[in-house]
């Protein structure tokens, strides 16, 4: 076989240059996805359900986690991996609630990747109670675009939009909505002050992803919190079975 082009001819043909086309057919995310699969196996070995929280900066991810921890104290053992570009302020807020937490700072990168979660997971297991969890929240870097591309090995992905951001976010940032299972509209206590037709935002999101489950809540007033708590209880109770069914299958993100 010819070494230059891989053809079967052994004589009577020449190659103008010594160039050769190599067939690769591999995802650019292959390295990330391989680590994400390891993370998923690690979560399952720990018996923990992992939820990746994605939103723009300031949509209320950390506040929602603070209130969720208060509500589920003594019922569900929660741990958190915080992702931010700089500072451990969000981790300090979570630590004040008395649950195991680690802060991953990306030093500039606008998203978490699977390798950072792998590292975070090992650090979390060293925290008191960090290896005895039912539910692990991963708060991604505040950004509605880039985090959607990177599988972290999570079982469920939650995308959040707050009322002040406006209802057009699903239409403008489709990827985050297509790849999530849950869409939470936050800060509903502010609905009287902003033009945010909830039905329109919901319809736009369902148009992109008809399987999306939509919730609307306020961490401040507690309105709409029951559906969120019920969802969390359901995914943690059904770990190993319901999560697989309700969650996503391996390799369904690029």
């Amino acid at each position, binding site marked *: 076989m010819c070494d230059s082009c891989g053809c079967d001819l052994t004589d009577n043909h020449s190659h103008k240059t010594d160039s050769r086309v190599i067939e690769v057919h591999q995802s650019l995310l292959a*390295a990330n996805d391989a680590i994400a699969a390891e993370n998923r196996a690690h979560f399952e070995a720990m018996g923990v359900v992992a939820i990746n929280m994605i939103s723009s900066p300031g949509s209320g991810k950390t506040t929602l986690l603070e209130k969720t921890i208060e509500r589920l104290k003594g019922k569900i053992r929660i741990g958190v991996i915080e992702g931010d570009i700089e500072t451990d302020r969000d981790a300090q807020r979570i630590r004040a609630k008395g649950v195991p937490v680690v802060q991953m700072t990306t030093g500039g990168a606008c998203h978490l990747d699977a390798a950072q979660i792998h590292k975070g997971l090992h650090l979390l297991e060293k925290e008191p109670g960090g290896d005895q969890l039912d539910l692990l929240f991963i708060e991604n870097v505040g950004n509605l675009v880039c985090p959607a591309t990177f599988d972290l090995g999570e079982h469920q992905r939650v995308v959040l939009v707050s009322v002040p951001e406006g209802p057009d976010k699903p239409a403008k940032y489709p*990827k985050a909505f297509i790849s999530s299972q849950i869409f939470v509209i936050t800060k509903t206590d502010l609905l009287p002050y902003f033009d945010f037709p909830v039905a329109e935002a919901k319809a736009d999101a369902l148009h992109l992803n008809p399987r999306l489950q939509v919730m609307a809540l306020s961490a401040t007033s507690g309105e709409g919190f029951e559906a969120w708590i019920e969802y969390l209880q359901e995914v943690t109770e059904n770990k190993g079975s319901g999560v697989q069914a309700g969650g996503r299958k391996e390799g369904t993100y690029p």
Partner: protein
Amino acid sequence: MHEMSLVQALLAQLTTLAAEHDKKRVITVTLDIGPLSGVVIDSFQFGFDILSAETSLTKGAKLIIINPPATYQCIRCGHRQSAAVRPDHCPECNETLLIPEGGDAIILNQVEME
């Protein structure tokens, strides 16, 4: 700009391939970037132009990006259609809820090297 991270992943893959095949220079790189991949092709090209110029292996390499369509399945009647831009409704039953399938890949298909 996660496109930069993806370009870095591409260049790492090219470096490995060149070593495996004992090649010194990349001539063309062919990628599939789906319409639902979340990748802005102009940003990807921009990142590639900057980072590829930094090493002799990829300096002057040409990037060919193919944008394959995604498939949309109607939630009501199951009809499938292939489209580059999300269709508004199902041509069979007019349903507006369509589930996207595929179209989200970012794949390195071929590399020409010498």
